[in-house]
């Protein structure tokens, strides 16, 4: 089981206002089977943090380790799901899902079998041959998820994967993600600005504050775990503990906002 360590990471973008770091001294551990959610207002450095872990971006100082090895660039051991699906429109659904395996040089029969199995996981059986531009936003996001999973990464990173979906589809996708998480037993790092989504999904909730981007609060939650063990999303979300936690996190967000505006 892998362990991802983010160790005192600071990021200054070249050319941005002097002194204000996009991320400042952020430390964080994503352990086995955790579902870590980073929540924060726009511009607090969520995407920056994800890009660091993915290896798209190098920290100004600090380091990122996956199983004690320094992360120095993108690699197949850290899969990414994007907000705008970032699928390849010249490939059909099956070939998109099998793309990572193709890059690895796997034979066609083998990678199609794997892609097929992964499409079953995300409930997209029957759409293998469809061009991706014929799918709805929610289905496309599921293809993106399947593409990331099929490559069998050690960590799955998701950047506001459900932000562009309607409320109903978003809830379906959240429940799908929890089911997948229990089934594949991988660690997941997800960023969102949707408070309820964060509280529902996270085993570990990280609240980021803006300018400079810092970890303002950490919390361990179990609503997602309870859902993946069979409790219905409705009963969890209407429960007193969920509502209290949600209101508590909301108050933290507001407190932060007051600090940063004064």
């Amino acid at each position: 089981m892998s362990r991802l360590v983010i160790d005192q990471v600071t990021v200054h973008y070249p050319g941005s206002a002097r002194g204000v770091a996009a991320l400042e001294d952020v430390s964080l551990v994503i352990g086995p089977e955790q579902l870590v959610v980073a929540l924060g207002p726009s511009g607090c450095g969520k995407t920056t943090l994800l890009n660091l872990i993915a290896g798209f971006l190098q920290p100004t100082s600090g380091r990122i380790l996956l199983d004690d090895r320094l992360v120095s660039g993108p690699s197949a051991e850290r899969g990414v799901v994007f907000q705008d699906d970032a699928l390849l429109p010249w490939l059909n659904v099956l070939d998109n899902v099998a793309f990572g395996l193709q890059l690895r040089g796997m034979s066609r029969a083998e990678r199609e079998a794997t892609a097929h199995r992964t499409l079953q996981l995300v409930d997209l059986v029957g759409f293998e041959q469809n061009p991706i531009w014929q799918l709805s936003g929610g289905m496309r996001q599921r293809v993106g998820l399947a593409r990331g999973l099929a490559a069998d990464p050690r960590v799955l990173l998701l950047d506001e994967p459900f932000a562009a979906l309607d409320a109903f589809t978003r809830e379906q996708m959240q429940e799908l993600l929890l089911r997948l998480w229990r089934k594949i037993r991988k660690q997941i790092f997800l960023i969102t600005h949707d408070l309820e989504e964060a509280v529902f999904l996270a085993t570990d909730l990280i609240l980021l504050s803006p300018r400079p981007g810092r970890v303002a609060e950490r919390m361990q939650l179990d609503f997602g775990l309870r859902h993946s063990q069979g409790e219905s999303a409705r009963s969890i979300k209407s429960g007193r503990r969920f509502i209290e936690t949600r209101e508590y996190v909301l108050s933290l967000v507001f407190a932060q906002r007051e600090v940063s505006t004064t």
Partner: protein
Amino acid sequence: MTPIEIGIVDDSLSAAVPSAASRRAANPAALPGNLLTVNTISMLTLVVLLAAWWATTTAGLIAPLFLPSPQSVLGKFWLVATKGFMDSTLWQHLAASLGRVLCALVAAIVLAIPTGIAIGLSRVAHGILDPLIELYRPVPPLAYLPLIVIWFGIGELSKVLLIFLAIYAPIAIATAGGVRQVSQNRLRAAQSLGATRFQLLRYVVLPSAVPDILTGIRIGLGTGWSTLVAAELVAATSGLGFMVQSAAQFLVTDVVILGIAVIAIIAFALELSLRALSRRLAPWREQGIS
């Protein structure tokens, strides 16, 4: 007083005008009395033009030397197609022209796509190649034709080279544009699936640029085809351009018109087939996905 009134007038304009316009744009056929499609109107225009041509020439309003009748052009078509003009049939002229354009096109595609990729990916290649292409591209082919003749003689090479140059620039420029516009997230997605630099180029950058490359080919083929007549001024003994040129020298106006008509029809057919190819190879562009 006045500013308020202006404000109200502005409001009503901005509220009313775009909504009416967008309704019309969204569904042109829905307007009452809008029974004709654009295609029907275009066809009707051509029919009217043909009828006017037929009427004026048949009534003897214009001397056949200036404008021969459609019947005589059609008759000439049959004659040139079967017996020939200047030692070659129409089909031989057509084949000669198409052969030159095809040679030039294949050479241009083979060379311009790598050039465009290099310009799009590398700062150095961009710095070196971009000014070279931008320098010759705006010059009309007829202007550098004499230089090509001095360097390469009056053989086939000079003709093909002239057409090649006309096709090369648009394809290289379009390819470079397509390569530069490749979506960053698609590149990143491929990288986080383990793609090497070569795999990024092969599986993400190139396919992304295909629609732009096809647009470049379409534009290049258009300019290439119109350069044909100029190319065939150079001591050609066959070709549509040559046929029109020599017919003009002997004042055989119906062959001139026939030649022009064939050149136009071929150009139109090339344009349409490349559009169809584009739709087949890059159907997602039609769906608004870049």
